[in-house]
Structures are given as C-alpha cells and as structure tokens.
C-alpha cells in the first residue's frame, strides 16, 4: 500500500516575474508531521500557498501530486475537496457570513453533501469547547473583529470540522499567548492520525511540544537546504539560522 500523500517535485514559483521558489522537492507520507523553518522572506508561505492553489503565485516549473494525482493545474476549491487545507497566516475577514454558516457551507462543499443539522451543531459545539472558544463566535461574521488569536483558533476549528488529509499550518502559533499555543497544539494532536499528515511553519518550539515530529526542513533562498529530525528544530530555535550556516560553511 502506498502511503505517499504529497509530492512536490522541482517546484519553481514566481510572483510578478520574481522567482521565489527555485526548485523545491518535498515528499510527505500519511501519518507524518513535518516542520518547515527558515528566515523570513525565504518562501515558506509561498510554498504552502502554492500547494493550496493561491492564484497570485505562478508555477513556472515542476509538479504537485496528491496521492499520486497531478494537481498542479487544479484550482483551490478542487484541491480542498481532494483533502488539502491551509491555515492562513492572516485569515480574511468576510462580513455578512457567520462562522457557523460558513463552516456548514464549507463542510457541505468538501463532503459533497449538506451536513446533518443536529450532528453538525453538536460537533461544532464540542470542537469550540476543546479550543476554548466562546460559543458566541459561531454567530459572528467570519473573522470580522476577531483578535489575532481568535482568528488562529477559528482556523484550527475549521481544520477540526473539515478533517482534511493534509493540513498546512502557516505560522498558526504566531501572535498567540502561551495557553492559546498549547490549545492549538493540542488541537493539531487530536486531529493527527495515521491517515493524514501535517506541515507546520513555525519560528518557535511551543507548538511542537507534545507533537511527534518526523522531519524538520530548512528553506532558504527558495530551496530546502537541510532536512533533519526533531532535534534540528531545537538547534535552530536555540541558535538561529546563523549558527547552522556557519557549520555549513565549515
């Protein structure tokens, strides 16, 4: 049985003729948790946004495969229905649509049929409680007036409700206080199983605590320059990317 979930092959991505990603290769199997690190502006967000299908980014070379199927040309909604999910670094505010109605619409779209009302509401209530979210937020307009931390929790709530195969978390922990990071981290832990996979972009160790990390990748200047185990994340967080660079030079 093939456990390969995502394959990124020699991915080159440009924005307005400026090349951001310069040949990224990455394979993620079911059951794995990957961490993506790197200095600001090296293309981490570009990578996950491109995998999600953000039309601002142009793929000039390479392919993206999900469970062996080429999705390079697919639009974001198709990718989402195939099981990819992106937790946005800065989630959009959408006035006039309540969080609950949005989630119901999204779940219906992803699963191909409208969710059953009672089961959905019960599920939503439970997940919100687990994430330590005020149930009133379900009736508020999507992300409108949410604090930075509330927006990130709402992203994880969507992850829990939609149960995708691949979760891409773009700095979901930034802007959160210690307790909130722990809550989010617990959410990811609850979500994760041997049928799905997680890719986490982070600058800190807090969200990784308690998670079973398989691989840590370092992205620099549009390429993955190093891959290691959980210990690599600890080294980088402690010493910064500079130390690693010096070692690389030596």
């Amino acid at each position, binding site marked *: 049985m093939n456990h390969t979930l995502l394959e990124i092959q020699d991915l080159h991505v440009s924005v307005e003729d400026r090349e951001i990603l310069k040949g990224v290769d990455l394979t993620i199997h079911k059951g794995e948790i990957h961490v993506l690190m790197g200095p600001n502006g090296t293309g981490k967000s570009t990578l996950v946004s491109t995998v*999600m*299908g*953000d*039309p*601002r980014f142009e793929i000039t070379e390479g392919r993206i495969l999900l469970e062996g199927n080429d999705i390079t040309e697919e*639009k*974001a*909604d198709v*990718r*989402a*229905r195939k099981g990819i*999910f*992106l937790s*946005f670094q800065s*989630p*959009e505010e*959408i*006035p*006039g*649509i309540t969080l609950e109605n*949005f989630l119901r*619409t*999204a779940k219906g*779209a*992803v699963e191909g049929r409208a969710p059953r009302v009672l089961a959905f509401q019960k599920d939503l209530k439970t997940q919100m409680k687990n994430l330590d979210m005020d149930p009133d937020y379900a009736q508020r*307009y999507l992300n409108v007036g949410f604090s930075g931390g509330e927006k990130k929790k709402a992203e994880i709530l*969507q992850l829990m409700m*939609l149960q995708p195969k691949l979760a891409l978390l773009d700095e979901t922990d930034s802007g959160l206080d210690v307790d909130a990071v722990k809550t989010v981290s617990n959410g990811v832990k609850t979500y994760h199983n041997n049928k799905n996979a997680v890719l986490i972009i982070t600058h800190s160790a807090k969200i990784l605590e308690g998670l079973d990390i398989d691989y840590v990748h370092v992205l620099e200047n549009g390429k993955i320059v190093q891959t290691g185990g959980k210990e690599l994340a600890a080294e980088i967080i402690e010493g910064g990317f500079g130390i690693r660079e010096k070692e690389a030079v030596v």
Partner: protein
Amino acid sequence: MKVFDSRKTRVEEGDRSIYDIKDKVRSSFEVQSGLTEEIVSQISDEKNDPEWMRTFRQKSLQLYNSIPVPNWGPSLDDLNINDIVTYVRPDTPMRGKWSEVPDDIKNTFERLGIPKAERKSLAGVGAQYDSEVVYHNISAQAAAQGVVYTDMESALTGPYADMVRKHFMKLVPPSDHKFAALHGAVWSGGSFVYVPPGVSVEIPLQSYFRLNAPGAGQFEHTLIIVDEGAYLHFIEGCSAPKYSVANLHAGCVELYVGEGARLRYSTIENWSKNMYNLNTKRARVEKGGTIEWVSGSFGSHISYLYPMSILKGEGSRMEFTGITFAGGGQNLDTGAKVVHAAPHTTSHISTKSISRDGGVSTFRSSVRVMPEATGSKSSVSCESLMLDDQSRSDTIPVMDIQCDEADIGHEAKIGRISEQAVFYLMSRGISEEDAKALIVGGFAEPIAKELPLEYAVEMNNLIHLEMKGSIG
C-alpha cells in the same frame, strides 16, 4: 474591501425565467399609444372619475406637456411616450376572493409567492395586474380595528373620498417634475390605506404590482395615512416579464405619518430589464413620528428613485436602508432625500450598491436642514461594490445646511471583491462562483436583515441568480 483585482473580468446575466413568464395578453380596454386630452378624458370616462379628478388629470396633462424631460440623470432619450400604452385594464373586475381571480393571472402571482405570503404572514394583500387592482383582501382582525385597505378607485368614491381628495398628490404635486405630471394625468390603480389613531397593525399589509402587457405603463398611486400613535408595516413588490419594447413605471407613493405614529415601508423592485422606473415616493412626518424606508432595487433598465422624507414635526425621525444591484444594460440612479424642517429631527441613511457586467449604479443623497431645525442630526453612509472593471459606481451627496446647530455626517466607500477573500473561501472547498456569491450576499446582509423574511430569501436568490455564470 481591499482592491486586489485589476484583471479584466466580466460577469454575465443569469436566468430570471421565473419573472419572465409572459401571460397571454388579456385586456378589455386599451387606449391608443401616446398621450392626448382625448386619451386622458377616455381614462376618466372608463374610471368614472369624480369631476375634480377629471379636471386634475387634464391640468396634469398640460403640466406634463410644458415640463422638460430631466437631463441631469440617466438618459431618457429612448423613452418615447407615444409608444407607451398608458392604460391597460385587465379583462377582469376586482375580486375579494383569491379563488375568483382568473387562472393565468392567479398563476403569475402564485409563482411569485403572493397568496402564500398572505396566508403565512400578512394582514392584507392587494395585487395589481397591469393598470388595475385585481385582488384586494384584508384580514378580519385588521378590518375590525378600523383599518382601511382598498384600491384607489374605490377610495375615490367611497366613505373616505374627502380624505383622499385632501391628500391626493399634495405631497407630490404634478408640478414636481415631468413624470409626476404624467402620473397625475394617467394614474390608475394602487392602494389606499388608513390606520386610525392608536391602532397598531401587528402584521404587514402588502401590495404587489405586476406589469404584463408589452409597451404598457404602470402608474399606480399609493396613499397611506397612519394617524396619531398608530403603527403600520407596508410591503410593496413589483415585477414584469421582459418584452422587446420599453415599459414605463411612473408610480407615486404618498405617506402621511401622524404625531407619534410609525410607518415602515418596504419595497423590492424587480422590474424586467427594459423598464423605465421613474417612481416618486414621499413621506411627511409629524411630531415624534417615524418613517422607516427599506428599499431594494434589482430590476429595470433605468431607474430614478429617491424616496423623500419631510420631517415636519419636532423630534420626528427617518431611517432609510437601501440596496441597489445594477447589472448589464442597467443604469440605476437611486438614493434618498430628507428635509429637516423642525427642531431635534433625525435622519439616518444607509445604502449599499452592487454593480456588475457594465452596470451603472449612482447613489444620490440630499440632506437639507432648515434654519429652524436646531439640534437635528443626520448621518449618511453609502458602500459600493463593483464586481468587474466594466461596471461603474458613483456617489453624489448634496447637503444644504442652513442651521448652525446640526450634527451632520457623511461616509462613502467604493470597493471590489477581494481576490484574497475569494481564494480564502475556495481553499475551504467552495467554488469560485459560490465564493463570490457568498461575499456579495454578505455585503448585502445588513440590508437583507431589514427585509421581511420572504423578501430576504428572494433577494438572496436574486443575488445567486445574478452571480450565476460569473467568470473569474
């Protein structure tokens, strides 16, 4: 909303077949196209007008001939009054029982959900088909409270004849503008409502206008008098199938709100896209009274529509909530006017407009504060959403403040659908078309919330209908 998208996009018009089903034209009497003294006199004969109304019509006709066509708004060059049949009477007298209305007319209203709405949530319903009211009904409860709800023709000769004469076209005189004069000359149908002092009509009254004959004009007159301390919610809906010839709607609405009374007037206009909608609506509010307007404009080729409120009594209030959706070939010039003519009066105007596929939406507001209106407050806010690069949206505010002690605010925002917001929704499995419809629906939501439920549902359906076939 943020500006992200500078690509050329175009959003096509969707299917509106429900509204476009044409009935076989059945009428017992039609005047010739065009407008002459003889034609106006024929209308008077046909309607058995009292003498004063005969004179009123002829005087209005003279005014109509002397007043020039307005040249400050969307072009009316293609509207030729000689091509518009002014008076079309359907081949059926008015009914008090729904079952007696002829089948094809009944089916039209059934399709539009009118009698169903009555059964569910209305105190009374009037339905006008072409120039005449074909159905009028009021609940026993409202009637027992002394509420009068009847067609204008009956009101003209019935027990309320004096009241009608005293108020008819006094707020909107035929000299107001060319189409007010036209209305005075050829008006037909519409509703008369009187709510006695202190009576609160708990459930809304509704009238529905349907223009079926091609090249016809609809000139219904709505006169509502809400006496001291009374309350009424009146709902008005309009639609017509699309014909290749232009249709004209030049209705007139006059609302009198008594001391401490409150009137809520909700309208959804969904005329077909060859309609010239030149409608005049005006309210006068006495001391401590409130007028609330809720207005949705979706249809018509060209609209001129600026409901006006005259805050005549101290402490009187007006609230205007409106939405306009202009698609391809549509030039919708809408807005609201208010005159603060007494101390401590307040007005609050809040509108949203959406334009797509080359549609033009213009919002005009006019706030006038008279010298005596000390301590008055007015706020105007207008938000526009353009769905593509071919569409247009303008805001034209006019303020005439003749009083130092007044608090006036104005806010206008124009934006586009953010591509990032569309991507965000798509990343949750929602198709591009649905994502855009959700965003537009969300933009319109504060207005939808103000509409009666079945109209809010209709508005949502219309938005989805209008967004169908949109190209990213």
